[in-house]
């Protein structure tokens, strides 16, 4: 049941990611992958809020499933490689890794402490 619910809300999260990351990227002139950064940071904040508030019921599983679909790790990796990682990491690639990872953990912590 949890797998079924998480799959359903996760697919809605994926659609939200597709629309939102495209909207963010199209509204800016930068070639940095800020569309993916935006949905990932939003997902981290939302999951922090959810985990802080969750009582383990199915509703919270559904909400957590949404953030799983909304955020993505694989695209973050592939886009970072596109910024230049082989043979020598570029400044932009390292910045994309460090900034997104640091803000992601900070936003997850913030969300958790708001609701817990």
């Amino acid at each position, binding site marked *: 049941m949890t797998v079924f619910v998480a799959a359903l809300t996760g697919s809605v999260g994926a659609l939200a990611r597709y629309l939102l990351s495209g909207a963010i990227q199209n509204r800016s002139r930068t070639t940095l992958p800020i569309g993916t950064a935006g949905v990932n940071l939003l997902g981290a904040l939302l999951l922090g809020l959810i985990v802080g508030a969750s009582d383990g019921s199915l509703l919270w599983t559904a909400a957590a499933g949404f953030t799983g679909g909304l955020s993505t*790790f694989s695209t973050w990796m592939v886009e970072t490689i596109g910024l230049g990682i082989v043979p020598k990491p570029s400044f932009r690639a390292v910045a994309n890794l460090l900034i997104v990872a640091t803000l992601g953990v900070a936003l997850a912590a913030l969300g958790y402490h708001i609701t817990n």
Partner: protein
Amino acid sequence: MPARSTPVPRRSRRRSVQDLPAPLAVLGGGLIGSAARAAVGAAFPVAVGAFPATTLLVNLAGSLLLGLFLARRQRAVTRRWSLRFWAIGALGSFTTFSTFSVEVFRLLDRQAWASACGYVLASILFGLGAAVIGQRLGRVGR
């Protein structure tokens, strides 16, 4: 009496999965990717505060597959629907950044500094490595 000729369907008029609107392709792929990760998570549960090996392996596998898919796609003639279905929908949802962030926070919160650092470094360094390996594999025979 002349045989009635059956009309030959024009290729461009044939309905196919290629005609899927973009949102449906992403939704469909997202369903598969989310179900796969939920199933893996249910099969290999990790206690809160323990090293998040399941998420790590899912993220590494997804990064390798995405690198592979995108590299293959450059040589084969693949339509945009397959990019939306497999890359954006399925592999995008299979891997997760939100769970990664919360797991790092939980390790830090429990002062499991070594696990937290190890998890972040393994995710990022092996994630980049997995995606590069996927890209190289995808270019084999090019």
